């Protein structure tokens, strides 16, 4: 449409925001922050059958300095909380946190003296993933939703102000990619049936 049709082959137009977001989401390095049962499922997700490498994420970084996603996999105890915060602080911006499992999300069944009742008491969380432990498919779904969120991030303060108060519309991937999709892709407020957001 428009100018692109008049351009020769091999030239694609995009915005810097989309390009930057695309690079960010396409090779996201998770930190190895395994704590308990969920860590085993997280490793399983990285292993051959579920293969996180399909989403450019098979490399779990042991050093927080090289990681941009922290998958808090397991129950966070009072003793572990300061460690978690320090590792979060060591990660470079931009960074995201995925609370994997019900313990990391809300404390879950361990409502007691030892467990932090949700890792959002310690670090800001971008994505909550319930389950005890969540299946690898659920983790992949959460990661894909996080990717959608990353793709929708405003690139600077001006863009952020433009979309202030609006949140990324996170449609389930089964709906988003399903044949009978009726919901619009993109930001809330869009007309149904009209694609206004990014495509990937």
């Amino acid at each position, binding site marked *: 449409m428009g100018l692109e049709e008049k351009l020769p082959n091999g030239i694609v137009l995009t915005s810097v925001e989309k390009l930057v977001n695309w690079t960010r989401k396409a090779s996201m390095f998770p930190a190895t922050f395994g704590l308990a049962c969920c860590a085993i499922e997280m490793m399983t997700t990285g292993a051959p059958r579920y293969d996180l490498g399909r989403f450019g994420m098979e490399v779990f970084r042991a050093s927080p300095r090289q990681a941009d996603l922290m998958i808090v996999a397991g129950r966070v105890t009072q003793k572990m909380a300061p460690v978690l915060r*320090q590792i979060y602080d060591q990660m470079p911006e931009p960074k995201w946190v995925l609370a994997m499992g019900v313990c990391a999300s809300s404390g879950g069944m361990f409502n007691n003296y030892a467990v932090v009742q949700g890792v959002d008491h310690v670090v800001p969380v971008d994505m909550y993933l319930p389950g005890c432990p969540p299946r690898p498919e659920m983790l992949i779904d959460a990661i894909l939703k996080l990717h959608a969120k990353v793709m929708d991030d405003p690139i600077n303060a001006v863009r952020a102000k433009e979309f202030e108060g609006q949140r990324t519309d996170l449609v389930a991937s089964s709906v988003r990619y399903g044949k009978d999709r009726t919901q619009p892709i993109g930001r809330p407020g869009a007309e149904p049936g009209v694609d206004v957001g990014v495509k990937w």
Partner: protein
Amino acid sequence: MSSTYTVSGGDWSELVDTINADRARTVQRGGDGADGTGLVMPDNEPFDPTDSGSDVESDERIIVNMGPQHPSTHGVLRLILELEGETVVQARCVIGYLHTGIEKNTEFRTWTQGVTFVTRADYLSPAFNEAAYCLAVEKALGITVPPRADVIRVLLMELTRISSHLVALGTGGMELGALTGMTAAFREREEALHLMEYLTGLRMNMAFIRPGGVQQDLPEGSIDRITEFIKVMDARLPEYDKLLTGQPIWKARMEGVGVLPLEGCMQLGITGPMLRSAGLPWDLRKTMPYCGYETYDFEVPTLTEADCYARFKLRIAEMHESLKIMRQTLERLREPGPVMVGDKKIAWPAQLSIGADGMGNSLEHIRTIMGQSMEALIHHFKLVTEGFTVPAGQAYVGIENPRGELGCHVVSTGGTRPWRVHLRDPGFVNLQALPALTEGSMIADVVAAVASIDPVMGGVDR
């Protein structure tokens, strides 16, 4: 102790103070070096506690904090290593980063609900936690479970042993840089988890074994699926021998590393593959059988090298033995029978079945209690909400989990909730061998030694 332990280094200074105090004592004793560090201090040199590196030997002495967030510590284990060059002079482990209060939580739930908590303690061997807890509760109750329930328990435990050993190999391999070993082990573990999901409904943390038996009978087609699993594993387990056992790098990293001879094992209370790698064929399945293990034909593999490589080989051998036991359960599974005790004061009041809205009480049962019998309804309500009572007393049961003796001690005051539930986790006990395994070795060998202990921090800290 009122100190706050953080990673910001507050407790390091305490440790350094302790070391300095030790040195001061050594100096007073005349520098006999008997404090275990092998460090001989000169008599005439005045001791200066602020100058920890005054002598030549400790010029390169540094304290390295390893963990709790470290890819090679096998979980959230924290090691404080005192190094001279690359040699570990002193290794101390700090645990508690995964203390979840599982034992305490069980005191506020019914006896049946306790299974849901203990299964999450040692998350790599959930079936063993459940079995140990249920066997202890049954001992306190003075009941025996039906034979079919025992067979199902044995089947689940051996399946779990395979998946647990595979994680031990996989993560151990990953920590030593053998990433292919990890991917291969997780591929096989996935087979085990798929079978587990088919049998019990969940991949991990099943809570399928309940006091009095198991939650429900295995689904139709289980025998075929188990047979298929055994066939797949029989074909794939030899691949580990091809991939790892004879591999020169693997052997170089593990042979003669982390040696703990039998005397050391006995003194430290070590059980499991670590003990058997030192030559003692101590396996509770043989020595103190439970769940009918005495009727199965299997071997207890042992070696005498007592090093990491021997433990690795034992784990491979034990997986073969587990498959052997699983094969023997197949014939026994063909005989139908109850999977829960007949005592209606203990057993779940209804056989669960799959209805239109998922798993639940069978429709016939609901029809009876809702339409015909008020007493049955009251009984159902009381048993489900309040739970059964266990007579006052205590019981201890030890079983052989993939890491060693897993014991469960339950104390009842005669109520519907436990007074105390304690798990004797083999990972916790075996972890105390870490200084004995690593002190005097290179820092890289610490990783191999920790991997060969295979502690699961969920079980260690509970």
